[in-house]
């Protein structure tokens, strides 16, 4: 399945990179071209997510779970791929559910920042995938320079997990507060 995974990952990579450029264009411009591109954003992100999920699923079949979850590079690739897919799903849902409101005021810069962050996640995921098939890039050295050795499993201690849990709950609370505030407005 490795060859199929390599073929399939080209689609989400290309589509999400295109989506990043589209979001940046729309964030910086209210012109006709930017608006036209924006109208294609939800279909683009949808196709990208579907292809991303397909690549993810096929990727999990390249090696048995015991194998991929036993190697630091494999673990890192699965972790980053999971976050990348989840992250771009978030962008799709946001643009789909909130429509053009995402380009109002400071929201457009939030969208631009999210798109750039999504591209970074995508790039790291692809780099780790390259490592797994023996193709190395300097991105690994950049990550190493930033403090993460890609040959070691990325994980956080229990205290950080607890902090993430608390932050997640706070975000959900914040969301519920926002929903109530919107309903009362």
């Amino acid at each position, binding site marked *: 399945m490795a060859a199929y995974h390599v073929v399939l990952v080209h689609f989400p990579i290309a589509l999400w990179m295109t989506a990043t450029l589209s979001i940046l264009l729309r964030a910086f411009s209210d012109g006709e071209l930017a608006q036209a591109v924006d109208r294609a954003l939800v279909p683009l992100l949808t196709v990208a997510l579907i292809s991303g999920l397909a690549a993810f699923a096929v990727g999990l079949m390249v090696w048995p779970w015991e194998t991929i979850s036993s190697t630091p590079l494999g673990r890192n690739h699965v972790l980053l791929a999971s976050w990348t897919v989840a992250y771009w799903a978030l962008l799709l849902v946001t643009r789909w*559910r909130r*429509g053009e409101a995402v380009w109002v005021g400071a929201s457009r810069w939030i969208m631009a920042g999210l798109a750039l962050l999504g591209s970074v996640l995508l790039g790291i995921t692809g780099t780790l995938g390259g490592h797994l098939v023996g193709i190395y890039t300097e991105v690994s050295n950049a990550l190493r320079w930033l403090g993460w050795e890609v040959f070691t499993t990325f994980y956080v201690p229990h205290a950080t997990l607890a902090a993430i849990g608390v932050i997640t709950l706070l*975000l959900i609370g914040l969301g519920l507060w926002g929903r109530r505030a919107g309903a009362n407005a």
Partner: protein
Amino acid sequence: MPFFTHEAKADEVKAHPYLGGKRKQEEVRKYLPATRKDINDWRSVVPEDELAALRQGGYFLDLWHWRAHRSNPIDVSDDEVIFDARSGDAGEGPFTANWDAETKQPKFMLDPQKTQRRALKWDDLIQRTLGLDDVYFISEDTAVPFDTIHAWQEGDTIPRRLLRRGDGSHADITVLGRGLWKDGFWDVTLKRAMDTGHPLDDKILVDKRVYNLAFAVHRYAVGSRWHNISLPITLGLGREADLIASRFDGDVPAWDQPWHAVTLFYPGQVSWPMLNSARHAGAENIKKGVPVKFRHSESQLAHYGVEAEFAGEIRRQWLFTLFAGVMLIAGFGFALNQWLERSPGA
């Protein structure tokens, strides 16, 4: 393997008819894969006639084991072999235990006529005041039977190992000149005949052949498996290889060849069964004969080795981290969506 987290129990090894009974093993030491019917089962030793045939065929590793304390003081090296277990070559090795288990006391002490003392001083050892020219070991040349009626004092220290020349195949390797500790490094040259006359214990070195070597070094007074190792390198006797050996005249080479730096790393708890199992993505490559250097660097393996020590714990924490990250993204998405204004056209 000894000192692995899940090492075989000594009683089980001793009860094994061949390893415990005939080979007198108390732990599962390094062994080569073909000496077992199943590489995942140390107990599955192949029949003895098969072992003999493998050995005759040269299926063993030749281990030159120089030790700073147990062999260097008398200018020799241990000579060992790895086959169905790691063991010494035939004959006596360069040291033996200086302990009488029945009387529970040392067998030998220092000869006061030759060394002006019966024992070392504990404080000298702890404070590292002894140098290579001091009396810091006991050998068959400086030993006399232990004096039970001597007025021994607190701090009197007799070395645990009695050093000796050894004999037979076990004593094929000597130190050329003198092994010296200087500026934080040992400078040692080992010497052995190219043909020792012991082809069942030693790799006979022949001109124009290429051999595979690997190095292991214990530093910082650690023992057992806590050593650093190298990836395999090739040695060519007058042939192209990583290391090229060339003939010289006289007793000592000029040492004017280019240096070859060898990178060492800590291998952790990585075993041959593990590397050939579903836990190793490269197991298929091993079966195909792909060299380790093709896919791994020393620095990569150093990290993998340490992680292998805590494989279960790290995998669990990694899964927690993965799900925590997804939940954080979901929470952030929920909050973001609730606070963004709904578009008129949405």
